């Protein structure tokens, strides 16, 4: 299990985390989402012990992470832009990672074959997507207990994405806990069972994706009379009026609210399904982002 309590971190006077509590259950594939600059990469760096927090605790398997080699050997952190020496090839990378991790050469071969990567070619000649594929192959071959991925789907073509998601399912079966920071919310919704949405200084919503989606809903309404959103008998997050049609986003007990609307005898009452992307947009708009 991954746990932070009262996590705080600031850079040059800007607070990124302020008393933030995060829990990720063991064996979960968790999507980390947030607007640009919300602190996704910072959180992954702190969780993998690359960066030290200003305050609070960060524990993995109940142990502190920072400067703890034993815990860190169970973690694989794949940054947005992983470092490699000039001239390094896939083969050399394999040797380097074999020193620190329980590297499985067969898994490495399986994925590098799938991705058709030439392991004798210097990485610097690889395209962005190929570099990504190579480092993903390394990450999966290291068989970590905790895998942290930053902008994991960036630059990957649709087939590589699918292969990568399959790889994640396989390591999850072996008990690996995964956190993926990404803006590809569609991919995250496929592969993740939980999520963390962070805003300026804290966690905004987190937990099971389905549960969070069942707590927020969008309705399209139209009435015979001229009814404005302000006249609706429930609290809503956002409402849009287009002609006679009111589109309203609300949170809470859907059955109760739709019953109240039914009493008003609407001409139209239709629920519009929401996905993780809609949830994200509603949550960050509520905070006044990009208005």
């Amino acid at each position, binding site marked *: 299990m991954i746990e932070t309590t009262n996590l705080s971190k600031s850079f040059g006077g800007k607070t990124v985390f302020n008393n933030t509590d995060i829990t990720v259950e063991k064996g979960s594939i968790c999507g980390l989402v947030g607007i640009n600059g919300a602190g996704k990469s910072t959180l992954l760096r702190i969780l993998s012990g690359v960066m030290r927090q200003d305050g609070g605790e960060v524990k993995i398997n109940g142990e502190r992470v920072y400067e703890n080699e034993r815990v860190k050997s169970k973690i694989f952190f794949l940054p947005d832009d992983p470092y490699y020496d000039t001239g390094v090839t896939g083969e050399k990378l394999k040797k380097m990672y074999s020193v620190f991790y329980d590297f499985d050469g067969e898994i490495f071969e399986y994925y590098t074959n799938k991705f058709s990567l030439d392991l004798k070619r210097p990485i610097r000649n690889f395209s962005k997507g190929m570099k990504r594929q190579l480092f993903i192959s390394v990450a999966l071959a290291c068989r970590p207990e905790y895998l942290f991925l930053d902008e994991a789907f960036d630059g990957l073509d649709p087939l590589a994405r699918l292969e990568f998601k399959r790889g994640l399912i396989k390591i999850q079966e072996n008990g690996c806990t995964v956190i993926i920071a990404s803006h590809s919310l569609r991919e995250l919704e496929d592969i993740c069972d939980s999520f963390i949405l962070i805003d300026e200084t804290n966690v905004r919503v987190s937990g099971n994706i*389905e549960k969070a989606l069942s707590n927020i809903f969008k309705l399209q309404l139209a009435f015979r009379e001229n009814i404005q959103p302000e006249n609706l008998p429930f609290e809503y997050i956002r409402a849009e009026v287009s002609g006679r049609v009111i589109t309203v986003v609300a949170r809470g007990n859907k059955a109760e609210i739709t019953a109240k609307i039914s009493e008003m005898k*609407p001409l139209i009452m239709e629920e519009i399904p929401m996905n993780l992307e809609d949830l994200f947009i509603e949550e960050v708009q509520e905070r006044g982002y990009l208005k």
Partner: protein
Amino acid sequence: MQTEKTSVYLKIVNDFKRKIDLGLYGEGEQLPSCRDLAFKMGINPNTVQRAYTVLEEGGFIFTQPKKGVYVAVRDKKRYADEIAREKLCEIKNSGIDKKILIKIIDEIWGDGND
């Protein structure tokens, strides 16, 4: 490709409902295991499991422990009830008067004989 805008597990539920209704999966036919389907689609196995649970609760499929998931033999009458209930809820929400609705039903059935 424009994908249907709904949550992943509902997409799986609706997809199987449609395929079962169309007879693409016959009664008693085995469905892919949760893990196999998840792996094939690149979807979290928990999500597939949730979809299967919903389908099982809806009487579309049944699980034989350690064997697999199969398409259920469905009680057509019970299913008809469900459809009627669903549609009537929609109709009720439109704000129609109950007496008028009953009149319409009688008209459709023809003189209220059947």
